[in-house]
């Protein structure tokens, strides 16, 4: 996640193919983390993300 903020190239790669981008970093994810990676909308802007914040359970 720190690379998302600091590395524009990584951001582009993550938006194009999240699992490949993370695999290249050498970070290993479990099944739920990979599912979360796929479920995230990496193309959403910060403002769009802010608008989606729910009130939770």
């Amino acid at each position, binding site marked *: *996640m*720190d690379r*998302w*903020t600091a590395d524009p190239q990584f951001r582009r790669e993550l938006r194009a193919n999240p699992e490949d981008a993370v695999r290249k970093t050498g970070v290993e994810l479990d*099944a*739920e*983390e990979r*599912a*979360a*990676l*796929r*479920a*995230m*909308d990496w193309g959403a802007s*910060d403002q769009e*993300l*802010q608008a*989606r*914040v*729910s*009130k*939770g*359970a």
Partner: protein
Amino acid sequence: MRYRPAQEVFSRTKRFVSVQAQSPGQKRLLLTAVENLEAQLGEEEPLPFISLPLAVHAALRGEPTPALPLAVAGTLLFLGIDLLDDLADGDLPRTPWRRFPPAQVQLAATTALCALAPKALAELAAPPERIVAMQRRLAEGLLRMSAGQQQDLGFAGRARVGAQAVEESVAGKSGEEIALWAALAALLAGAPSAQIARYEDVGRAIGTAGQLASDCHDLFQAEHSRDLANGTRTLPIALHLEPLDAPARRGFMRLLDRAREDAAARAEIRRLLIEGGRLRHCAFVVEIHCQKALARLKEARPLEPAGGALREMIRQVSFFPGKTSKENTHGPTENQDADGPLDRRSPIPAGA
């Protein structure tokens, strides 16, 4: 007319409190607490302490109705916890509580938690050994939640708070609360221990994700952030503090101190957190817990339509509901979990 389980459960809760109260004064105090909670929550549906036990019971047994009295216990538990939280944060609403001294409000909370909720469990129409198991699980759940709350209270105002520790305290408090409701419903349904564990995990993941999402709402959406006002260290704050060097941390701490009362400081914190990617990071952590909930629910093979109701609860917590629900599959109409079919004709002993 649309069936509203929350309305029915609150009606039952008020009747239960009216019958159990030992004096007119106690009845007035406790009914005030229940009516205030009902008014606060208003038209909100689903309410986790009502919808979750009903859905878990229906997922196991095919119908939610036997869990309605359990939802009364859940309402009383939630009431006690909510009042204690408000007292600890100094957030108690003036209406209706200005008529009662704080000590009486505390009394209402502890009475709901320690007397009324266990009494509601004791009066369930269930075999005695199942009720004992539920009472034991209630006590264990409250102990875990207390430990989680103590950890959370220890973070307030601190400069060094690990993000993982914050996430664990959320799981230990809010996660354990929802896990408790799921466990009680599964115990009432007479589920085998492996199924109870699965539903506990579903509840824990929903509760953790829900609280993390709520903390994000407080920081990034709410007009007035209660957490910034109280110095609470939620996950976005912890994620931001963790990598800072000492001078930057001191500067951010000064900003956090100002934010307790200064709206401009709060806006600056929001801007820094968003620019630092902390909202996106939290969204990812919330999504991981949502996926955990879905995975464990799939393993539990819930009956439908209750499985759909539980998936919808998970979906409502996620920042990406459309994509979160992609993994779901419809379950069987007869419960065919790995522990063998659930015999609906006779109760299964708790712990089987």
